């Protein structure tokens, strides 16, 4: 029995260890390149000097005021989206679940488009987007409420219905608005990290960090919920309470990401699937932290690629462009 225990733990841990190693190396390389590459190229020694607030003042400004906040925003938003996707896929037992399934994108999108097209309270857009996301999810939760719990099918269908309704209002507002404003609203809807700085990060960063910690603590509940409602109850899990906690944390993460960078698609869908493929399993104790790290890596890489061309693309366009074929490939490779 002891040899079987040893074999089991070795097989289990080696794939996870390899994945942790790969993601860590990938993340370090991507962050180094993101800080170094741009209109002005900074070498490693220049980066180090700028980090110590020494050397050329212009390099220090580029490092501290332009690139570092943008890279940090990519890491934070990517981690939030990856984790949010993993939480919702686990809670809804639906591999197509994304952070935007519960109406988050529709709620945030409608509020932002309304503010941009009407030209009001422009400085409050990130906070308003956050509130739009959270309020819409609360409405979807109420639609899904049954006598003594939350019905998963109603939660998904409620999210689809609200998204459709808000989406049509959003489109109508866009069609009726002035051209310059359409461009601005579209930039936000596609999702971009251009110009994101410390102010957005200090607003959303701390509570995203707390939500990430809560997500890790919810991993064991997700493993049990994966066994189906009846067994989960038999194992002492309160279905309603778990769903409210998990859905709430997933919503706060996605809403935080939306408030910083707008609606960035595919990270929340693709990253958890990629991590499942890499670790060869569905153990949420590892999947949650690895989806956070993987999301940070994927969004940082997408942001780096979006800045490489002659014209900077919105990062949301890059994630969708890369995410769709990658997702199809993952579906055909999946063995978990």
């Amino acid at each position: 029995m002891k040899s079987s225990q040893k074999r089991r733990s070795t097989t289990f841990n080696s794939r996870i260890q390899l994945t942790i190693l790969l993601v860590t190396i990938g993340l370090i390389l991507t962050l180094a390149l993101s800080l170094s590459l741009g209109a002005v190229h900074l070498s490693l020694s220049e980066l180090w000097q700028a980090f110590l607030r020494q050397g050329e003042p212009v390099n220090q400004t580029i490092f501290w005021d332009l690139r570092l906040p943008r890279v940090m925003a990519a890491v934070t938003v990517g981690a939030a989206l990856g984790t949010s996707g993993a939480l919702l896929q686990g809670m809804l037992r639906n591999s197509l679940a994304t952070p935007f399934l519960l109406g988050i994108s529709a709620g945030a999108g409608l509020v932002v488009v309304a503010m941009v097209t009407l030209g009001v309270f422009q400085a409050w857009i990130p906070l308003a987007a956050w509130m739009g996301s959270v309020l819409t999810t609360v409405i979807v939760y109420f639609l899904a409420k049954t006598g003594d719990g939350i019905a998963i099918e109603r939660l998904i269908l409620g999210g689809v219905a609200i998204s459709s309704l808000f989406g049509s209002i959003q489109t109508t507002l866009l069609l009726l608005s002035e051209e310059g404003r359409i461009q601005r609203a579209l930039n936000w809807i596609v999702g971009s990290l251009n110009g994101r700085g410390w102010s957005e990060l200090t607003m959303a960063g701390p509570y995203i960090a707390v939500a990430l910690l809560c997500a890790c603590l919810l991993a064991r509940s997700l493993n049990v919920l994966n066994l189906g409602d009846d067994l989960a109850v038999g194992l002492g899990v309160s279905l309603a309470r778990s769903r409210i906690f998990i859905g709430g944390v997933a919503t706060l993460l996605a809403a935080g990401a939306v408030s910083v960078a707008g609606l960035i698609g595919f990270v929340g869908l693709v990253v958890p699937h990629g991590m499942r493929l890499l670790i060869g399993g569905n153990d949420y104790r590892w999947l949650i932290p690895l989806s956070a790290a993987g999301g940070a890596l994927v969004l940082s890489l997408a942001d780096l690629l979006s800045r490489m061309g002659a014209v900077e693309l919105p990062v949301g366009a890059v994630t969708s462009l890369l995410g769709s074929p990658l997702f199809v490939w993952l579906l055909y490779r999946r063995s978990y």
Partner: protein
Amino acid sequence: MPIETQKITGGYKNKTVIRQIDLTLQNGEWLSLLGANGSGKSTFLKLLSRILQPTKGLILLDGKEIHDLPPNIVAQKMAILPQQQTVPTGLTVHQLVSLGRTPHQSWWQWELDVEDRQKVEEALVQTQIDRESDRPVTQLSGGERQRAFLALALAQDPKILLLDEPTTYLDINYQLQLLELLNRLKQQRELTIITVLHDINLAARYSDRLALLDRGLLYGVGTPAEILTPEALIDVFGVKVEIIDTPVGIQICPIASCVT
């Protein structure tokens, strides 16, 4: 008395299935619920396991109302094996069975402790699924899967085990193997077992007592010889039967349906 119901009534939204059932189980007893389709056997089991909330009546676990106890305390004493299990993707048998320790773990506990590991290994060995520990649950046969889920329930280290039609989808050989295994576990662990079974003969052979349900009401409860009378089987199932004494207990031989 590990579990007792006092006039419980309940069912689904706008539909009462179970009415006023009083039932008391003794320690280490195996009780099987029998009845026609739709008589409320599975609903009764769901009420006992808190999957459904009764609209009236009490369910007492070790003398305390079950809905007043924290869910993890109930799960430490009582495990359930539902009729249809969601087969989780990406989990090995060992990982699945380890989840049985959930009610005993604190919310921040990341890994199994020494006691958890011991209970998981015990459950794997007792259900003879330890050789398949490293295999994904999705690759198991029907019989192996049922044993893996039984190991999950045993890892909870319960005193009461509720099983909803555990022999469904199994061939006759696997049915006998599973019921023999349950019988051994009952002796070894002094388990109180409640099963829903469709096969009257298997229920009569393995159970200490049978409870006959008829359209949501308790028709009667007693030993197989007491409860399985030709009259009771006509009333509950609408079937004329012949009752034969065999070395393994009474056997029911259906003769004709009384329903025209």
